[in-house]
């Protein structure tokens, strides 16, 4: 049983730091030098997302084998862990402005879209694809049990497809997502096939809406296939995720003008709300054998965040 540490590229979200191959190479080397052995990519669309789609990777690195070789030989990264896929995001290559997993008529499109990622991941020996299980809360409003069950059905279909490649689908609930409650997660877990659909636990996103990641893990230990670690200093106590275009809050700070919602782990002077040491104890006790991906979205200095998070892992979490 062992924990492996990976890093998400979701903090490198500006065309200055995420498009050119040489820039991305510096990012990969930063992550590697800090001791992380895997990377998580974010699904994207368009020519400015070179790592967001297998088709874009093909232009720059080649096919899955070529990219795998690039990671291992050129930048010393062992594993592409997964992509993080949001079905509601625009995908010009698929001629869609986003698809709704709660709408059965759109399930085939989601299966077709995810299969490209699953096939690529299978070729690099990855074990799962992370997906956002539902659209943003305000888009689904009213959020009903029926809509959640239909979304679960969607992921069962995707899971069945993925299982033919030897992969699982992991549902990652975030702050803004329509499934951002324990009751919704319970429905998703109950309605999906444990053989093909599991859970990805994102500490910061769940804490933002009052879900305890430790309790969630202990409840769904056998279903948990991935952790994503990041911290928060405040939570969405005003439930601003319910307002139209709620995603804007991440940048404009919402009514309280919060400059930055997500933080690195381990700040002493301004400690965050996630109990990472407690979660690590639970993870060790649970015998978790897999990846923990660290995220630093919203960091003004992603490279600094990588190193700071690495220090906390080496000096605190790895000693739990």
């Amino acid at each position: 049983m062992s924990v492996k540490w990976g890093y998400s590229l979701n903090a490198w979200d500006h065309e200055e730091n995420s498009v050119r191959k040489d820039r991305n190479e510096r990012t990969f080397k930063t992550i590697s030098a800090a001791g992380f052995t895997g990377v998580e990519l974010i699904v994207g669309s368009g020519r400015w997302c070179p790592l967001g789609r297998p088709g874009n990777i093909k232009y720059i690195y080649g096919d899955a084998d070529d990219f795998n070789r690039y990671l291992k030989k050129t930048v010393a990264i062992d594993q592409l862990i997964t992509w993080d896929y949001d079905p509601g995001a625009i995908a010009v290559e698929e001629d869609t402005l986003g698809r709704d997993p709660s709408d059965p008529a759109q399930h085939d499109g989601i299966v077709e879209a995810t299969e490209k990622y699953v096939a690529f991941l299978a070729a690099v020996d990855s074990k799962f694809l992370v997906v956002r299980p539902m659209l943003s809360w305000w888009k689904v409003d009213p959020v009903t049990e029926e809509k959640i069950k239909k979304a679960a059905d969607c992921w069962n279909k995707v899971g069945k497809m993925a299982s033919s490649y030897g992969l699982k689908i992991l549902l990652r609930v975030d702050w803004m997502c329509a499934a951002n409650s324990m009751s919704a997660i319970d429905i998703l877990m109950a309605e999906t096939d444990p053989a093909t659909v599991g859970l990805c636990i994102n500490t910061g996103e769940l804490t933002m809406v009052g879900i305890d990641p430790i309790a969630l893990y202990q409840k769904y230990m056998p279903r948990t296939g991935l952790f994503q670690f990041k911290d928060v200093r405040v939570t969405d106590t005003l439930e601003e995720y319910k307002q139209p275009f709620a995603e804007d809050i991440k940048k404009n700070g919402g009514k309280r003008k919060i400059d930055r919602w997500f933080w690195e782990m381990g700040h002493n002077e301004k400690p965050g709300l996630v109990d990472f040491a407690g979660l690590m104890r639970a993870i060790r006790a649970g015998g978790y054998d897999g990846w923990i991906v660290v995220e630093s979205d919203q960091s003004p200095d992603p490279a600094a965040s990588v190193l700071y998070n690495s220090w906390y892992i080496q000096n605190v979490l790895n000693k739990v």
Partner: protein
Amino acid sequence: MNAIKYSYMDHWFMHSPQGLTKPGVRREFVEYYIRQISALSFKGLDIFFFDIQKYARMFGSFRNFVKFLQDNGLEKVVGFFASAYADAKSTNAFLPESHDNIYRQFEQYCAGTEDTGVENIILMPAPTYYQCEPMTDEKIRILADLWNRVGEMTLNKFGIKITCHHEFWCGLRDEDAILKFYEWTDPRYVFFFLDTAQHVIAGVDPIKLYMKLHDRTAGFHLKDTHSIAGPEDYRTPPDAELMVEDVPRWFYEIGTPEGLCDFPRLYQCIKEYGYKGWISIEHDKAEIGGGNFSESTANAMWYITNVLSKIYK
């Protein structure tokens, strides 16, 4: 146990609510910085002479600062940078009557480190070139006398070596002047500190120079450059590192594709001479043009781990 331990030569700038800043303005920033270099397995820190008192104030004493470093995974401050000057009469290195003042200055710097195991003073042994020219043998001998005297004191009284570091724009910059300086200084008290990029910019092969001075060598700054200096660049007043018109940034971290320093060859050489001790990683001015110290430092350590350490570690 590895022969080499890595130290970080501080030039760090970081983002703050007030824009780019040095970490030393706020203890929280210092922690944010030190933990980053610790995460990359650096065990030492090199600072500037003026940081000794700054950190002593921030942490209550210099010893407390070193304890803070140790709490965060480093071992100690390995060296501090200082320089010869020719600006004010009382500290003009070319005026023998000023040498007592300079001697006392260095005595105070060393005392400020509170016996915490600092090993080197990384010294620019001559003022900036435009303040030295014409550089003569007589001037080199004056500098040699000064640093012999200061070096004897710092080593015998504090256990700290004077190690001389030759900027491409300092008075001792070409190979002929550098070799004369080491010929006329006492090998017991004055040591050589090789800065790869500075020599390459000055048109001096750092590896050949190291081969000639390996028995005087007490440390290294590994950094790279993408440019060789033009014929008059080194004379640019007041600061050739920042003000040469056609080179906005001289220094880069080791391992960039455009780099001109041959680090694998240097490591072969270091291996052959069996050097044991600290090597400092430096990339001053990395912020110029939007560069990032965290990323540069991580990429430098990536290059050490994946390239240089396979030659010698």
